[in-house]
Structures are given as structure tokens and as C-alpha cells.
């Protein structure tokens, strides 16, 4: 008997060894290392959320190679518009990445006009193409076939100086046709034009970060010295996108800013939620050399999520609507999936597209099981369907046991179901002190309600016993005193 058991054990051990060796530990097909930040602001390894699927270059499409492509946009119907700036053309692809058509100019007043180093484009629901034609100082609005609808040129306004150069770089359009333009050298904010191309004003200004050392230095300097100093001007925006509610997401490249991403409401105030453990600013820890993230594009993904593109480390950071960092992918390099000079990020269905100016191609990323599950759970949570989200969060935890957001998500759902005590453990794992406090308050009240009677009985009993012992001690002492006095 003992022998068979032993033999089986040996066999089991041998099989387990084989199985361990069968799966290599580092089998990640990604050319980059995915990571995420934990509560202690350490970068910890994470499963890949997105993997490169393919790249698309001009040759793949059967046309000449891209030259310095500047922007990419996916229309609501799914067509992919690539702005091939160096060649002054717009390449239109269908959702399956097949070439539909190429727009390399338009007819204006009977003359064929071309683009001159355009910087950005946007396509609205009616397939109208808005192009920021930087070199020609105008915004061109075309219909889907490439016929001119209108142009927006240098605005005439009292608040603009006469030397003002209108050089639109990036733009986005809301559902009523207002155009938001990020223009070069404009510090006042994002320029807003109405649907007929009339200048309305600016929205959202970046605050000047005050440097007190510099401030004192400035006070001590002479006028001539001061004239040579750098001016403190707000930083420019680098890009903008719009969500379905009409809020403009904008990024700036101020290296010192802790709020490089803004969500502007219609009156231009920043209403981005920042409830995560750390600032919404890309990398929060970096060696001195690369420095903070330089965010150059933002894409609203829907369900409150948004991705930003970092040009320092060429990575994509995705956040949920509350400002939690969901996942990071991408990196510097020359392989498929790493990026040389990324300029724009887009979403096409489940895929993410990153336009790489350095390699003149479009990189298509597809979500892994982990990434897809996270997206799904965040979407459910955003819609308030936390109970459905729990199962997906549990699956996410199987793929990444360090995923704090999943713990918090499960905890919140348990809290809804009034399972306060169980929720406590999850909130502690997710290090969410605020929710923990809520759960604990309820749990404490429940416990008090349940045990108040017992507690009171015990307390009264204790008091009675204390009084009795006291009386007994006193009585005894008096007796002793009496005895010594010879009363007994």
C-alpha cells in the first residue's frame, strides 16, 4: 500500500515538473513590458492589456509611402482617416483597413487647392472632414467625397492682435458643429468657432505655474535684466478630443504640470475627476533622464475612459472616468508595436490605432483577454451595473492579482448588496480608504444594533459586581477594625 502511494507521489512529482517546464515563464509576445502603478507609486509588472496586431504603411495599401503623417481619426461610421501631412493628402480606409479613397486636394472657386503641411483632422457624424491646414493658415471643411463646404481663416476679432498668426494644429468638433482649434502660439486656450466659422472665443486656459524662487529673483532684478528673462506664459494645448456629452478633453505639454489632461465643460472649467491615488499625468515615477510624460494626444474611448499618448516614453496610458490608471502599453523601439515618433492615437472598434510619424505607419493594437475584461468591467461600472461587473473583476484578478481597481470594484458591489464586512476586506486590498470608511461605518452600526443588549447586560452586571465587592471590602475592613477595638 505504502509503496503504491509512494510510486504515485513520484509520478505526480515528475508530471508536475514536466508541466512546469512546459510553460515558459516569460511568454509575453509584446515587445514592451507592461506595468501599472500600485498604491505605493511603484511600477509593478502587469499583464499586457493591448498587443500589436499589425502595422499599416502606405505600401501595404498600394499607394506611395506615408510622409510625416500628422493625425488619424475614425469617423462615427468606422472609416479611418489618416492625414498624410508630408504628401498633403487624406487617406481613407474602411473599418477592415482596406483603402477606400485618397483625397489630395479640393476645388475652391474653380481652382484646385492643396494642403500645406496640415496638422490635424477630425471627422464628424455626417462624414464632414475638418482639416487643420497649418501651412495655409486655415481650417478646411470638406464633405465625405472631398468637396469643399467652407474654410475657416484667420478670425477678425477685437481680442486678437493685428500681428496674430492663425496656425491651426489640431482640432475637434462637437455635435452641433462648433469647432475647437488648438493653434500654434496661442496661450489663451482653445479657439472656439461656431458652425459658420465665426470666432466665438477661447475655452480653457492653462494656469501659469508660479515659481516662487523665480518670483523673488525677478523682484530683485533691474528692468534691463528683467527684459532678458523668460516670460511666464501659460503653456499651449497640444491636442483635443471631445466626448459624446460635448466635454472637450485637452492635453498640454507643460513638463511641470500635475494636470496635463483637462476635461473642459462648456464654460471652460476643468472638470476632470482625479480620484485615483496619484495625478492623472502619465508616468508618475521616472528616472531623471526621460523626465515626466509629454502628453501629445488624447482619445476619448467611451464609457468614461480615455487614452493619452506620451511622447517621452512613447507609451499609451488609459484612465477610467474617475482618474484611475487602467493600463499602460507601448514603448520606444523599432519592432512592431513599439513606437518611434508617435503623433496620434485613435480607436477603431476594439482596436487602438497609433500613428507613428517616425516609421510612417499606423500601428494596430488589439486588446488581450486582460485588456478586454478590464474595458468590459469599467464600462459596466460606468453604467452603474456593478453586480454584473463583479464576475468580470474576479476574472481580471485571476489574470492580475495586483489589480487594485478590481478589488475596489468588487468591494463597491458588495457594499451595494449590504455585505459590509466582506467589502471591508476588498477595500483594504484595494487600499480605498474612503469606501472602507463607508463600509466600516455601516458594519459598526450593524454590530452595535446586534450586540447592544448583550453589551448593556454585561456592563450593568459589571457595575453591580464592582459595587458589591466594594461594599464587601468595606464591611470586612470595618469588621476588622471593630475586632481590633475589641467589640467582638
Amino acid at each position, binding site marked *: 500500500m505504502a509503496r503504491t502511494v509512494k510510486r504515485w507521489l513520484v509520478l505526480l512529482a515528475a508530471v508536475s515538473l514536466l508541466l512546469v517546464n512546459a510553460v515558459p515563464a516569460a511568454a509575453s509576445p509584446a515587445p514592451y513590458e507592461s506595468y501599472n502603478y500600485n498604491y505605493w507609486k511603484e511600477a509593478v509588472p502587469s499583464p499586457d492589456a493591448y498587443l500589436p496586431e499589425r502595422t499599416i504603411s502606405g505600401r501595404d495599401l498600394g499607394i506611395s509611402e506615408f510622409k510625416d503623417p500628422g493625425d488619424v481619426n475614425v469617423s462615427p461610421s468606422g472609416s479611418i482617416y489618416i492625414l498624410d501631412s508630408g504628401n498633403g493628402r487624406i487617406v481613407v480606409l474602411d473599418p477592415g483597413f482596406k483603402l477606400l479613397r485618397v483625397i489630395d486636394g479640393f476645388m475652391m472657386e474653380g481652382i484646385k487647392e492643396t494642403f500645406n503641411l496640415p496638422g490635424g483632422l477630425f471627422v464628424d457624424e455626417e462624414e464632414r472632414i475638418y482639416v487643420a491646414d497649418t501651412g495655409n493658415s486655415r481650417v478646411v471643411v470638406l464633405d465625405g467625397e472631398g468637396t469643399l463646404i467652407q474654410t475657416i481663416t484667420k478670425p477678425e476679432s477685437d481680442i486678437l492682435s493685428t500681428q496674430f498668426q492663425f496656425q491651426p494644429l489640431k482640432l475637434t468638433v462637437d455635435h452641433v458643429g462648433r469647432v475647437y482649434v488648438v493653434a500654434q502660439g496661442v496661450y489663451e486656450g482653445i479657439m472656439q468657432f461656431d458652425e459658420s466659422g465665426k470666432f466665438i472665443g477661447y475655452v480653457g486656459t492653462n494656469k501659469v505655474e508660479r515659481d516662487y524662487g523665480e518670483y523673488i529673483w525677478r523682484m530683485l532684478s533691474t528692468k534691463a535684466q528683467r527684459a532678458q528673462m523668460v516670460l511666464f506664459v501659460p503653456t499651449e494645448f497640444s491636442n483635443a478630443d471631445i466626448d459624446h456629452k460635448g466635454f472637450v478633453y485637452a492635453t498640454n505639454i507643460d513638463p511641470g504640470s500635475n494636470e496635463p489632461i483637462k476635461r473642459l465643460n462648456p464654460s471652460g472649467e476643468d472638470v476632470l475627476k482625479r480620484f485615483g491615488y496619484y495625478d492623472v499625468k502619465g508616468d508618475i515615477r521616472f528616472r531623471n533622464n526621460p523626465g515626466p510624460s509629454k502628453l501629445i494626444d488624447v482619445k476619448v474611448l467611451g464609457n468614461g475612459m480615455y487614452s493619452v499618448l506620451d511622447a517621452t516614453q512613447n507609451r499609451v496610458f488609459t484612465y477610467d472616468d474617475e482618474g484611475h490608471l487602467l493600463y499602460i502599453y507601448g514603448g520606444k523601439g523599432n519592432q512592431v508595436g513599439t513606437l518611434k515618433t508617435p503623433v496620434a492615437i485613435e480607436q477603431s472598434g476594439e482596436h487602438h490605432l497609433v500613428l507613428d510619424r517616425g516609421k510612417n505607419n499606423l500601428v494596430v493594437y488589439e486588446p488581450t483577454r486582460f485588456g478586454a475584461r478590464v474595458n468590459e468591467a469599467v464600462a459596466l461600472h460606468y453604467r452603474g451595473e456593478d453586480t454584473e461587473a463583479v464576475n468580470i473583476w474576479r476574472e481580471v484578478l485571476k489574470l492580475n492579482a495586483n489589480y487594485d481597481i478590481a478589488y475596489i470594484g468588487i468591494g463597491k458591489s458588495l457594499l451595494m448588496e449590504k455585505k459590509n464586512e466582506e467589502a471591508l476586506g476588498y477595500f483594504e486590498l484595494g487600499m480605498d*480608504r*474612503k469606501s472602507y*470608511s*463607508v463600509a*466600516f*461605518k455601516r458594519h459598526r452600526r450593524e454590530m452595535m444594533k446586534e450586540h447592544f443588549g448583550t453589551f448593556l447586560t454585561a456592563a450593568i452586571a459589571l457595575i453591580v459586581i464592582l459595587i458589591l465587592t466594594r461594599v464587601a471590602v468595606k464591611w470586612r475592613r470595618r469588621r476588622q477594625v471593630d475586632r481590633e477595638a475589641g467589640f467582638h
Partner: protein
Amino acid sequence: MKQDFIKFPLHLIFHPIDAFWDLKSDNRGRLLVAYATLALTIVMMILQKQYAGFLVNYIDPRTINSIIEIATVAVPFFLWCTANWAVTTLMEGEGKFREIVLATGYSLIPIILIYAPMIVISRFMVQEETAFYYLFNSIAFFWFVLLLFIGMMTVHQYTVIRTIITMVLTLIVMGIIVFLGALVFSMLQQLYEFGYNIYRELIFRT
């Protein structure tokens, strides 16, 4: 026994001016009590980091190290005593080294008395109530500073201004001692390296 080890220390923290005088003149202080308070303070610090409630405990559990906790309390304690003795000797303080250790040790009592229940209570607090936790911890700290101040004043028979000056000087001297210590340590290390290198050379050449 009970008188010296429980009643007098408790009396001291509420009536410091009288009690510190008794400690000095009537020889009421016990070194054992002073070292016990030091040890208990260290224990409280460790317990607080380990067991304080989740809502007030921002310590990364991976960084808790009892040896370091002991060092962060005991080293400043003895540094303070040494530096204070050095300063007050020069500044006509009447306190002996033993009395300085006693006064410093006895001053730590409120920290123990407040930390112990607060660690337990903090486990039953919600976010809004954590303010009390921080309040009581600061009370403990200020009580300690006040006792230390009165202790120093009584032990050395100083005026208020002179006590403040000596306490500040003590802090500076503490810094100097640390600096000199580091200097000596690094020099010793270099001497050792030098000797070791010569030894290695000799070994390789032969």
C-alpha cells in the same frame, strides 16, 4: 514598589513641577522606570505601525522593521541625554547625567499612556473620527515636550529662557555628534579598507 513604579510616575505627569523636584531632591526617580518607559515607547511605536486601524495607518507594511524602530527612538534618546549633559555642564546646569536620563525617560510616559488606547480605538474609527486619533497623538507629543521642558528646567535649576536656549543648543550638539560620528565611522572604514588592501596585495605577491 507600587509607590515608586506606578504612583509616582502617574503623579509626575500631572504635577510635573513638584514631582520633578521630588525626583531630584528626594531621589524618587528610578532608572529602571526611565528605561522601561523608553522600551515601552519603542513597543508602542512598533505596535502603532503594525496594528493601528487601516484608516489611519499609512505605513507600507513591507517597510516595518523593528530594529530600525528601536534605533529611531533609542538613539535620539541617548543622544539627547549625552548632548544635554555636555551642554548643561558648560552652562552651569545642576543636573547630573542620571537625572537627565530620568527626566527624559519620565517625560515619555504620556506617549505610552495615550498611544496604547488610541491604537485600539483607531481600529473602530471611521474616516470622520480619525481627527481625534491625530488630535490625541499630537496631545501626547506636546505633553511629552512640555514635560521634557519642565524636567530640564527643574533638574538643572534654570530659568525659562535659559532652558529654551539649552534645549535648542542640545539639538545642535546632537547634530554635531552625529556628524562627528559619521566622520569617524567613515574614516575607520577607510582605514580598514586600506589595511585590507595592503593585506591583499601581500597575499597576491607572495
